[in-house]
């Protein structure tokens, strides 16, 4: 499972890098090339977002990517095929990221079964709190998949523990209030929050929302196990293409 993978990798690397793409944005072929480039640039884990029409937790950039993919009629079926292909071809763990309705409509149990069959390792569903997740948790468990849950700066210590008790793989720490794609100040507040997170769980910690440059990643060394690069790689993709992304991710290491 993911936790072992992360802990093993962390022996060699001070911090791991997780990146994110929206499947089908701007098109399926570019998505594929982006994954390839990211893996070649040394990424450690990848989030594959299945586009959804109502991505409430995403900011303008990822939101637009979701829309682009849907405008091009990218289906959930195509996303699964895509995930299967990259999971087969590339040696890093892949996670699905999407909103709960995608999972729910597919059938929660069927979705987990499918993930397992296609070689995915887990899923991030930001609008599914553990209180609503009984069926999902059972299915993920059954298929040995990691349900990644989120912490936020507003999450209390006791609630962190509660969340941790349902989570596996790692904890996705949201760096700040707000949606994806907005600046985060990497400051002592963040330190304190990550400290609280560490105390609450023995799972590895990933930090996301606002990681944009090498300095941010460096700041996180020793504080988190994984730096999550989301929006910024989409921006780079749009501006500099796949080659640019590769260089950008490589530069984060």
């Amino acid at each position, binding site marked *: 499972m993911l936790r072992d993978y992360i802990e093993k990798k962390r022996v060699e690397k001070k911090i791991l890098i997780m990146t994110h793409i929206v499947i089908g944005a701007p098109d399926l072929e570019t998505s594929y090339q982006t994954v390839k480039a990211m893996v070649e640039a040394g990424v450690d884990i990848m989030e594959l977002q299945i586009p959804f029409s109502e991505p409430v937790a995403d900011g303008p950039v990822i939101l637009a990517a979701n829309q682009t993919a849907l405008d091009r009629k990218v289906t959930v079926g195509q996303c699964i095929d895509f995930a299967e292909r990259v999971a087969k071809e590339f040696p890093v763990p892949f996670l699905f990221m999407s909103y709960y309705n995608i999972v729910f409509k597919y059938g929660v149990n069927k979705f987990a079964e499918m993930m397992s069959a296609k070689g995915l390792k887990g899923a991030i569903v930001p609008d599914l709190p553990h209180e609503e997740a009984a069926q999902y948790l059972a299915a993920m468990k059954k298929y040995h998949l990691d349900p990644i849950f989120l912490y936020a700066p507003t999450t209390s210590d006791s609630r962190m523990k509660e969340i941790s008790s349902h989570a596996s793989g790692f904890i996705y720490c*949201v760096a700040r209030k707000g949606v994806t794609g907005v600046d985060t100040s990497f400051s002592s507040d963040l330190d304190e929050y990550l400290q609280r997170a560490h105390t609450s769980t023995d799972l590895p910690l990933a930090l996301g929302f606002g990681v944009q440059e090498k300095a941010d990643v460096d700041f996180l060394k020793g504080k988190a196990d994984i730096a999550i690069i989301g929006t910024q790689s989409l921006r780079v993709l749009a501006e500099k293409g796949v080659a640019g992304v590769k260089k950008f991710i490589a530069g984060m290491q």
Partner: protein
Amino acid sequence: MAAHKGYFGEFGGQFLPEILHATITGLEQVFETAKHDPGFWKEYETLMQNYSCRPTPLTFAENLTKYFNGAQIWVKREDLNHTGSHKLNNVMGQGLLVKRMKKTRVIAETGAGQHGVATATMAAKFGFECTIYMGEVDVLRQRPNVFWMERLGATVVPVKTGSRILKDAINEALRDWVGNMDTTHYVLGTACGAHPFPEMVTWFQSIVGIETKKQILEATGKLPDRVYACVGGGSNAMGIFSGFLKDTAVECVGIEAGGRGIATGEHATRLASPDASIGVSQGYKTFFLQDDDGQMKETHSVAAGLDYVGVSPILSHLKETGRVRFESATDAEVITALSLAVKKEGLIPALESSHAFAGAFREVSQMAPEQIIIINQSGRGDKDIFTIADALHDPKWRDYIKDKAGEYNAS
């Protein structure tokens, strides 16, 4: 917390990003406290009496009754509320909670613009900062409401993502909230969304049902046989139905937007058509108009306020239990019903409310003269003049607008 917090049968729940957990829990608490504080309801009622004009009348529609020659038709006059619709009830109630929470800013989504105007009005009255999210399409078709929101001091943000209508405005409001929940309360406009919104909005709107029940008993000594309300998100329907749900002899009928007809797919009928299926979005579980992948569909209604993919989880539950019957009315039927209400009674229902009239008109002739129906006139139609004039192809209106544009071009 109990597993079934905020559930109505299998519908409802609280599907929100973790970042909002503390905020929504805070809201739950302030709402629970208010709900159990009789002083709060009194404060709310007094506010509505002094600022809006509650109790709103229940008007006997004598001419329509004669015309249809069936049951007696009564109309609950939410159109007489300040700002012109039932939306103010909810908004003022939430305003009182915002004061209790000591927040200083409110945000809201709006479709028809009624909820936006109501929220901006409440914000002006209570001295809150205010931002309104409104789909770009709706900004265009509801410009008069945007104008008033701006005059009221609100910032109106046109939402350019998604289908650029109500659901997208909700998403954008949620995005704002996720970033600003310390100072900001999200004033959701209907009985949808994450717990406690469906229950809370219904509670504030129940003032409509409480009054209506009292009024019809006073006027006729009897309960009504049927109560009709249009269903967008479901707040006006839940408001009036609340008064009668326990009286099982009273049939509650919700009328959804049939748009260009169910068969065309261009409608917003979630409960009265087989086109919707259960899903989870925008914080709650209910029937949504979505495709097989779970992507939300585009909806259509002549009434911007009914043009929404989801519906109150409470209504979904009441549909499943059979307590409420759901029907739909097409754009064309609605325009006809509106014209009739205007001509016969001097009432100008909003296009949304005209759906309830259309639904009732379809059935009332088959009822007996001793029977009673109540139609909830959730709002007034003045605001819809651009849409109604277009629907009626009024040539004089067109000329007027062309002349005005000519003036503007010249100056």
